[in-house]
């Protein structure tokens, strides 16, 4: 038997052993979080663990299952109704803010519309954060300018022709945006 043959047979044995080992691994899965292990997920008081059926039922039915952590969500200016008589951004201010946010010239083509938060969700199907008070007025702003998405660890940023944003008209900040969306094609 030549060395070539011996090497081939050894390789076959090793490969088959590896395949068998792979099959064995395929049967395994991570340990279930019981809520009592040192590395188990911490959960709000009153629950036994992340698999506690009462916690999962709460999360399926309610936005808030950990009221103690709710203060941070309420700390943003758009979490509460805009006081009556409070001043709001003008169309020009909202448009210029978005252009500034993108770092593009003030002459860039831009469209805008003034709506309530609730109307925005209905009209554009935008899924906003839960801590936004939908009674607050917003400026919908679309800018016609090439803009890159952020991308991610495995995906490069993509160049998109539009950028759209929801500007909270009371605080003057964008709460939600979309790189690539043309929510508006003209001002209204």
């Amino acid at each position: 038997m030549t060395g070539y043959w011996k090497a081939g047979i050894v390789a076959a044995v090793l490969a088959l052993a590896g395949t068998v080992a792979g099959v064995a691994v395929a049967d395994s899965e991570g340990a279930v979080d019981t809520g009592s292990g040192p590395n188990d997920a911490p959960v709000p008081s009153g629950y036994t663990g992340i698999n506690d059926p009462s916690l999962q039922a709460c999360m399926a039915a309610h936005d808030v299952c950990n009221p103690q952590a709710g203060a941070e969500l309420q700390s943003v200016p758009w979490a509460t109704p805009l006081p009556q008589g409070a001043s709001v951004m003008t169309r020009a201010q909202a448009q210029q803010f978005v252009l500034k946010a993108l770092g593009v010239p003030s002459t860039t083509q831009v469209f805008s519309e003034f709506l309530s938060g609730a109307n925005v969700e209905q009209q554009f199907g935008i899924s906003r954060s839960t801590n936004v008070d939908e009674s607050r007025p917003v400026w919908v702003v679309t800018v016609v300018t090439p803009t890159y998405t952020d991308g991610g660890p495995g995906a490069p940023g993509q160049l998109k022709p539009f950028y759209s944003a929801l500007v909270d008209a009371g605080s003057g900040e964008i709460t939600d945006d979309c790189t690539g969306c043309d929510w508006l094609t003209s001002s209204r």
Partner: protein
Amino acid sequence: MRTVLRSIALLGAVLALVVGELALPSAAGVGAGQTCAHGFHPSATACVNGRNGERYYGGFDDFRNVALTATGASSTNGIHINQEMWFYTHADESQWVETGLRQGYWPPCACVRYTRFWADFDAAGNEYRHTVSYPTADGSDHQYEVLRNSSNHNYWDVYVDYNRVGTSTNQGSSTGYEVQHGLETTEVDGNVHSGLANHSPLEYMNGAGAFVHDPYGASWVDSRCSGTTTGTNCLTGYGNGSDVWEAAKG
């Protein structure tokens, strides 16, 4: 006999090549032999990615409000550094929901600010970003979860500290293929820094609706620092137990 031995040898060589190829860390993807998503922004991450064909119905992460810096960030210099979790809803990693902390230029405020956020990418590659809050880097631990919506299985709810902060409605998938967590940055140099974030644990919801620990500890670290050290021109990422991931940038 000679012919039989030659055939066995040839078959063995081919089999060894095939098995060896599967075991090599190749391009990002999900399934056997694949590493965590990588190849664009430098990252120091760990993941579960369907090594044995698993599918995921939720992802869980817990890490500290670590200090993050991105010096020089501006509207014309979009550098940033994040500590976060990604939940991929397509096997080719083309769409995902992400949530965590980011420091750098944040267009929504037209400013450089430490931000808790969630974001998602639709089928056309459009990116939707949502500000959750502006916390302080006080080292406190917080929990992040992406969970399949109980009514519409193509929707994915995003939770911070067990409070729902948003719902991704644009994934077009009722299944998760990879859960990844750790550090992501736009560059590896002296402009960006991150404290050591203890991502613990990484868990996923299995087909039976139970959260289980990551049993495998797959990871990917670009420009890896030596061991547990940190450095200006490298990323720190190492496992500390099967589902604990430490990530930092010196």
